[in-house]
């Protein structure tokens, strides 16, 4: 689920923080910059693991702050393909079941990856697995708040960096920019179409 990513960056320490230990200031700046943020094609950054190398600090003319190139390792949430994860069902909609891990919310299980046959119950707005046994069909509801085990099938990174001023119509471009801002930078596609996957309560022996 979590990987260690080696990165380098130049950290700026303002002069009023010079009395603090350099390592502490740098750790704080790195966490301020990266924690809880998605780095494109890398994953969701959690926290600093360690600092591997500090190069010399420089002060540039015109800026009283020190600039230090830092080599460090960061803990990043980036599940590998086909990994099994356990999450909680946040909501159900026509485009599938939305699962959350608490710290990461953008996981979708599309309708075709649910245990088949499945149908969407409009009245209760939940997906239902129509499980057939010799006794007849059982309707297994995928209620909100239930713990669900799923396999990671696909991941999508979207570059959400600002695109700059658009030239022509101001009003229409504002609308499209707002739509773009709501897109999640990192989404996972899951699947529960195998034996053992789905709600934990479906597979316990009790």
């Amino acid at each position: 689920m979590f990987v260690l990513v080696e990165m380098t960056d130049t950290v700026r320490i303002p002069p009023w923080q010079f009395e603090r230990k350099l390592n502490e200031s740098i750790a704080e700046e790195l966490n301020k910059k990266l924690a809880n943020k998605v780095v494109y094609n890398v994953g969701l950054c959690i926290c600093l693991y360690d600092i591997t190398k500090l190069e010399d600090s420089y002060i540039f003319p015109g800026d009283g702050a020190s600039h230090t190139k830092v080599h460090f390792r960061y803990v990043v949430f980036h599940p590998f393909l086909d990994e099994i994860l356990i999450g909680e069902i946040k909501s159900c909609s026509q485009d599938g079941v939305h699962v959350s891990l608490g710290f990461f919310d953008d996981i979708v299980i599309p309708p075709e990856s649910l245990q088949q046959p499945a149908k969407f119950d409009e009245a209760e707005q939940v997906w239902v697995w129509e499980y057939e046994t010799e006794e007849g069909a059982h309707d297994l509801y995928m209620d909100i708040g239930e713990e669900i085990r799923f396999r990671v099938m696909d991941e999508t990174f979207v570059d959400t960096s600002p695109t700059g001023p658009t030239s022509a119509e101001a009003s229409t471009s504002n609308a499209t920019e707002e739509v773009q801002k709501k897109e999640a930078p990192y989404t996972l596609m899951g699947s529960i179409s195998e034996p053992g996957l789905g709600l934990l309560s479906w597979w316990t022996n009790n």
Partner: protein
Amino acid sequence: MEVKDANAALLSNFEVFQLLTDLKQQRKESGKSKQSSGQQNLNTIMYETLKYISKTPCRYQSPETVRDFLITMKGHKLTKAEKLQLLNHRPVTAVEIQLMVEESEERLTEEQIESLLQTVTSILPGDPEEQQRESPMATEDKGDQE
């Protein structure tokens, strides 16, 4: 900012759990001298991740159990990713093993799957309450077999 290696190492949930609890301890000890505005993101992600990991079997693990587990796993010929998943999830049924180990029907016989389950449940500590419930039942079963 430059990413040198996006996959330098895999971390188990237990390692991240330890790291976050130590960090939380450090921050508590150093007092609230830091400006909270910049630290809000770190606080949020630490709290949520700790909350999630605390619900998994990792909270009962220790560095020694993880080391023992990996040493015992050497004989089973599993890939790094599969061992990591077994460590993070602590499966108790054969179905879960089949999910985590690729092509388990071809690579492992039923006995091997059973022995794998035994290794996992014996070396990795589970929920202490559940284990207490299970052990009197186990002694009852043994009594029946005799």
